[in-house]
């Protein structure tokens, strides 16, 4: 089985020993997502300090692709500015694991790989929207708010 294009040592390692697994107290972002057609289920938690991801953890059940990709994603995100986090893309995650080919070869499994990225983006955007509301109600400038996008 050497050269399996998906189940590399790295993926199996991550799936057995995921990074940033666990929970955060009083997270600023809590995002749940699941893959409706299988059973992958992820809870992301993020702590934000001065517009930076000061901590990120996840819990959940998922296949090795899902767990490995989530691990990589949390590593990528941790410590980064929200502006940078906004810019993270599919291939940033897939690339780390050599899984870019999944987009082409497995339209089904790609969903496992990208579940956590979807949750992250959703969580971040919701956070921005909440912020915008706060800022609006606090009477702040509209431009400032839209910057959050």
């Amino acid at each position, binding site marked *: 089985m050497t050269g399996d294009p998906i189940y590399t040592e790295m993926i199996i390692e991550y799936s057995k020993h995921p990074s940033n697994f666990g929970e955060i107290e009083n997270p600023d972002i809590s995002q749940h997502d*699941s893959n*409706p*057609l*299988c059973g992958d*289920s992820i809870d992301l938690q993020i702590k934000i300090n001065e517009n930076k991801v000061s901590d990120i953890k996840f819990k959940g059940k998922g296949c090795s692709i899902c767990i490995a990709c989530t691990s990589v994603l949390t590593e990528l995100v941790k410590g980064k500015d929200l502006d940078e986090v906004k810019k993270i893309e599919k291939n940033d995650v897939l690339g780390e694991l050599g899984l870019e080919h999944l987009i082409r070869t*497995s*339209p*089904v499994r790609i969903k496992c790989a990208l579940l956590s990225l979807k949750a992250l983006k959703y969580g971040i955007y919701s956070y921005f929207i909440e912020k915008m509301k706060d800022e609006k109600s606090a009477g702040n400038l509209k431009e400032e708010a839209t910057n959050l996008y």
Partner: protein
Amino acid sequence: MQTALSLETIRKDFPILQRKVRENKLLVYLDNASTSQKPIQVIDAINDYYKNQNANIHRAVYALAEEATEAYENTRTKIAKFLNVQKREEIIFVRGTTEAINLVAYSWGRQNVNKGDIIVTTEYEHHSNIVPWQLLTKERGAKLEYIGVDDNGELILDQLDSYLETGKVKLVTFSQMSNVLGTITNTDEIIKRCKKVGVKTLIDGAQSVPHMKVDLSKLECDFFAFSAHKMLGPTGVGVLWVRKEVLETMQPFHGGGDMIREVHKYETTWNDLPYKFEAGTPNIADVIGFSAAIDYLNKIGMDNIRNHEIELTKYALDKMSKVKGITIYGPKDIAKRGGVISFNFHDVHPHDVATIIDKDGVAVRSGHHCAQVLMERLDVAATNRASFYVYNTKQEIDALIGSLNKVAELFKL
């Protein structure tokens, strides 16, 4: 036909047109408003699916299932493009127009229609655009009202205005083309008047989509329904399109597999659009067959189809009006009608007409065409109806005329 394909080439694609019926008569199929015939490309697509790809979709990771899912979802995209719809998640697969309209009545209707509200339909609707609203309005204590049909077979739009003025109308629902009179509804005008007062509109496109270009980005309706089997596709598939803003507010209709996100014992969350409205194993093979039908229509071109039918209809109206004892219904103006011609012979029952001409292999529909409200309006029990499609020819119309003359002779008209 002004197309890359000649009529002769097209006819060769439809195996059934080679068939002999009754006493060795070549089939002359003129019941296209009821269901169309299928080109070999559609038949082969279904065949090929079962021989090479058959698997349940959306839920498995193995090769076949991925292929089947892709083919199924590509059809959705293709249909979105065919109707010029930007958001493919607005396309919901159903069994046909009837299920589509019932889905709206149950899901949207029961949420939005209350005591005293009014639903407006028309006198020339198919039963599938009347009965669901009778059931709904009865359940909700609401009222069903009808836009009348004038003597030229067109809707009397002043009546719409008087309903709208009550301020109680929740939905105006109508066919874009009458399946009996062939009348093409003044759709833009109805929608304009409804939009002005914020009333939702549903278009029954069962007879229009197969025969003319429909651009949903231009029509500003909220719901649109049609059936594959009337447009070269297989039986058992249809489409409900719902404007996303509206679809997002709708509760699910059928519960089951695929329409859920997470099921727990006592509560459940719904899947994304459009899956929320597609519970259970869908009619996968026929959706894929439908895809081949859309390809076929695109290859010919919807405008060419419309032009071909205008030509046939003109020819037929001209010849038929000369048959003894015949009455022809519907608009005189060819621009206002599709390729559907309803007619009667004086006091000869349509079933007798159909049986007599069937002996010559000519298939026309006779009966109430699931439009009994219109039959009452026309004060007839039934009519005969000849309806045309891409593969019909002037020779076939000549055959029809020949048979109709026999009827006149037999009944001494």
